[in-house]
């Protein structure tokens, strides 16, 4: 059913039920499927690290709620694009290479800045498309 109340001025962060913050043991650490880096689950700036800080590759394990581990796909999720929340936070949009599912996650404080900027510049690096858009304006 559609929402009939007035929308809030800014989007709140999606409510999370699974928090790994207070896990002292290292069972939540993972190895990146893209570059085989061992990644600790504790990240600066976010409580939900789901992608490798070096190559930004993630794994398709969650379904609707972040952290629910409900997906049986377990395919590699490549970073597809960068979106910006109204408060200025960058989000990485991942797409599963196996089933095409999309997901979004906030960037962490130790994410590779060069990889992030390369991702953000991807729409503009083809001069033909971007200049065609500018001409039509």
């Amino acid at each position, binding site marked *: *059913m*559609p*929402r009939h109340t007035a*929308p809030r001025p800014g*989007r709140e962060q*999606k409510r999370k039920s699974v928090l790994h913050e207070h896990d002292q043991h290292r069972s939540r650490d993972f190895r990146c499927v893209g570059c085989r880096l061992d990644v600790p689950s504790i990240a600066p700036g976010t409580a939900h690290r789901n992608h490798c800080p070096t190559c930004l590759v993630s794994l398709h394990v969650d*379904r*609707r709620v972040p952290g629910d581990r409900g997906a049986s796909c377990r395919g590699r999720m490549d970073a*597809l*694009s*960068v*979106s*910006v929340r109204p408060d*200025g*936070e*960058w*989000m990485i*949009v991942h*797409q599963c290479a196996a089933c095409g*599912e*999309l*997901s*979004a996650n906030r*960037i962490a404080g130790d994410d590779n*800045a*060069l990889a992030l*900027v390369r991702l*953000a*510049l*991807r*729409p*503009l690096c*083809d001069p*033909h*498309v*971007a200049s065609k*858009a*500018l001409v*039509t*304006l």
Partner: protein
Amino acid sequence: MPVNNIPKIDTFGCTRCGLTVTVRAADGSRRNHCPSCLHSLHVIDQFDGGSSECRSRMSPVSIAVLRNGDWRIIHRCVRCDELTSNPVSPDDNQLILLRMAVRPLAQPPFPLETFGDL
């Protein structure tokens, strides 16, 4: 992709700007977002397939680029946060498209000046 069985006179009203839009785009493909404000409607469930019961508005959040250079719009449902990606049609509002493309660079989380030294 051109689909021949789309009726030429079918229209839908945009839930955000109220514009009445033809379902069939100029190149024969099926439209799923308003060409003026690029907003869409959440009618397909991405997780389970089939139709979604949400039927809320989906706002455009970012531009994705395929390997062949085509742009796709990533939509996000304002009610249940589901994401979809849809191809750009030729008569889409280029101002909003470009604004979404340069939006990350307007609000960087780190200073971009240091990239000149790399």
